[in-house]
């Protein structure tokens, strides 16, 4: 699975303004709402579900990366977005580091395979330090989108 299969370009957030876990999740979900990927009346429910998942254990998987996610019947297919925080956000990461890169995923309840393939793609690309560094340095939506496209074209991780 490629980034272009699940990352909504219009919802990509460069220079996130939030500085705590709930706000950053809200900012990213809001961005998916503005992009027309989710319904307004489901926004609060989706944010609550993602926060509930975080309570089971942080999705901050290290290297300054987090993959907050939930299943929700409000989406017909896997949708996701990317956010970059310049200063980083305290996310109770597994390695204790602040998180700069967020990959937020919302998947339909009956499609665990798609969610796994998205995680597989994200983790494979992020193992490449150059991709990780360039993404953290990105300051515009266009830059982030271009990096994701380059990753999709196998210009980073093999």
């Amino acid at each position, binding site marked *: 699975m490629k980034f272009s299969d699940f990352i909504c370009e219009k919802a990509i957030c460069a220079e996130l303004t939030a500085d705590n876990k709930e706000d950053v999740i809200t900012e990213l979900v809001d961005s998916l709402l503005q992009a027309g990927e989710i319904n307004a009346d489901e926004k609060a429910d989706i944010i609550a579900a993602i926060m509930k998942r975080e309570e089971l254990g942080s*999705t901050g998987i290290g290297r300054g990366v987090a*993959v907050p996610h939930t299943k929700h019947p409000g989406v017909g297919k896997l949708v996701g977005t990317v956010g970059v925080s310049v200063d980083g956000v305290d996310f109770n990461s597994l390695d204790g580091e602040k998180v700069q890169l967020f990959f937020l995923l919302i998947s339909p*309840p009956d499609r665990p*395979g798609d*969610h*796994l393939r998205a*995680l597989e793609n994200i983790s494979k690309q*992020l193992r490449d330090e150059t991709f990780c560094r360039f993404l953290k340095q990105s300051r515009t939506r266009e830059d982030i989108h271009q990096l994701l496209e380059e990753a999709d074209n196998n210009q980073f991780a093999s």
Partner: protein
Amino acid sequence: MRLAADASAALLSFIKDSIGIGDAFAMSSTVITRNVVVRNPQGLHARPADLVVREASRYQADIMLEKDGCRVDCKSILSLLTLGAECGTQMSLLAEGADAEQAVAMISELFDNGFHELEQAE
């Protein structure tokens, strides 16, 4: 008996030294391997991967999972997620080191129990 054991250990040591494989040979002789299957419907997603890392990190042994010839470190969640292992996926669990046997036993138990997700309605 002990004399015989000492003698064979000395002989083994002599052979290893003389052909220059030393410790590498000794290490490879303690690799523990077991086949594991992902049993929970959601597969090896972030939470189970976190469970595996937490368990694996308790041991000194090097612990790896191998799928389709691709080997990843069980102490790294980022590595485990690259497997994209769905329900039903078969993999080899390998451990090498002093506590390898216990590590393999405990981690394969996590797989057998479906990472404690089998009883939950998701």
